[in-house]
């Protein structure tokens, strides 16, 4: 077991025993990585911060359930992903209209063009048009596929870690990730054709 993992387990143990400072240390240690992941999923700083806050609350409430069978990081990814998916589900139930969604009444599935908010430093960083296209395409993937793509390609999780985080067999992760990449490719190709017109 690595030192960092061992440190996490000790902190979890202490937090479970009611040591709030241990839990705070756990938060400090993981909050940035958690935010990165949440931001990559939501592409919105405020939403990502909410996801992370909700995830740590769930972690706090479920400390007793953490048995150390997976790493704390993997467990956190799982909770973050659930928070993200739950948030999306709630949004869909509210029947709000997403500007990123495909407009069904346009010929040939036109994507509504939205002004880039550029409100966050992260947005400004995305100056490269190729990256912008990729981000646009990722946003159009189903949430679950996007989570898998982000876990593997952005967060650097292995297939095994993703399988643990999503509670799926490794083979299923591989085949779903393959489908997600193919879907992404199709979106990118469509996008390219659209811009060529």
């Amino acid at each position, binding site marked *: 077991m690595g030192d960092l993992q061992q440190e996490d387990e000790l902190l979890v143990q202490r937090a479970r025993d009611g040591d709030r400072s241990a839990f705070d240390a756990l938060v400090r240690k993981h909050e940035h990585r958690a935010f*990165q992941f949440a931001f990559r999923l939501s592409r919105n700083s405020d939403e990502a911060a909410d996801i992370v*806050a909700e995830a*740590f609350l769930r972690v706090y409430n479920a400390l007793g359930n953490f048995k150390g069978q997976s790493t704390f990081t993997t467990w956190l990814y799982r909770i973050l992903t659930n928070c993200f998916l739950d948030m999306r589900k709630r949004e869909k139930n509210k029947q709000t209209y997403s500007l990123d969604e495909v407009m069904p009444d346009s010929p040939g599935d036109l994507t509504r063009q939205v002004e880039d908010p550029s409100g966050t430093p*992260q947005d400004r*960083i995305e100056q490269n048009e190729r*990256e912008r296209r990729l981000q646009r395409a990722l946003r159009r993937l189903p949430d679950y596929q996007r989570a898998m793509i*982000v876990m593997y390609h952005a967060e650097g999780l292995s297939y095994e870690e993703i399988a643990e985080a999503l509670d799926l067999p490794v083979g299923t992760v591989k085949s779903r990730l393959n489908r997600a*990449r193919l879907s992404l490719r199709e979106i990118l190709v469509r996008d390219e054709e659209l811009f060529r017109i």
Partner: protein
Amino acid sequence: MNHDKARDFFSAYFEGDLEPGLRQSLQAKLAADPVLQSDYSAFAETMGELGSLRTEEIESPIYLSDRIATRIDSVAPRKHASVFNWRGWATGFGLAGLAAAAIIGTGVSIAHRNSEYAMGGITPAASSSTPVDQFEFDTSSNSVTVSYLPNGAKTLVVASGTSGTELRRIPLDASQVKVPLVNKLPNPAVFELTVVGEPLHALIAIPGTVRAETKAGNGTVKELAAALAGYYRVPVAVEAADSTKAVTWNFESADPREVAGDALTSIGYSADRRPNGAPRPSAFSPDASSGSPPPCRAFLADGRAPRRRSL
């Protein structure tokens, strides 16, 4: 192997993870099917593009820690306020003739009052919960209130940390006082608290109405406190024997405590976090190699991260 089935193996083939029999079949199919070949080329290109995701730099927002803490506090409120024992600290370092400083991020928003630049007043405490000869920074009522209970007759002086102008002189007779501090100016305000006849004093920097944009600078410890308050919009308490020491700072980090620690460490201070207001004994122990105390030490409260109101 049909076209769709072949596509199912693209990832494994790309990653060299396909078993030899299937790899040969796919290679044969690719060689014979230009459409599939084109599909695979596009897929490989996408895999390359996905590699760029890892290089994206994402900075955590300043309010993240606070948002997390607020959520956790809603189910498990903290049981303590930050308290700094400066008498013990003075004994450890002041008597050695050495400078010392403590920076405490109190992490609350300031309720602006109607006065332009004012202290809210002095409140005699009904009951004394403040330990003797300790400053307590109360951040629970939307203001920074400094509580002080002397161990005998003393005089507390509150002055402007910028101009040095004396704002209040409070004679004390072993009873506790509470001094609320507010700032309604655009820039951070620094208050200076001194106990007459004591070697140490405390500085409280309170953010103004406008967030400072300057991320890097240099100046005295006092100016660092003001800069921290202005940039991170968090009240900062400094307890220092010498707040005129020169420091350099850079606000790249989202955590003002980390920044303060870095800045102070650079001039030979060491920093420690205080989970419950009590200094860690190890932080006070003399340097084992020399047998004498280190030149300076700083203590960072391990309280809630700062709340930044206007971004």
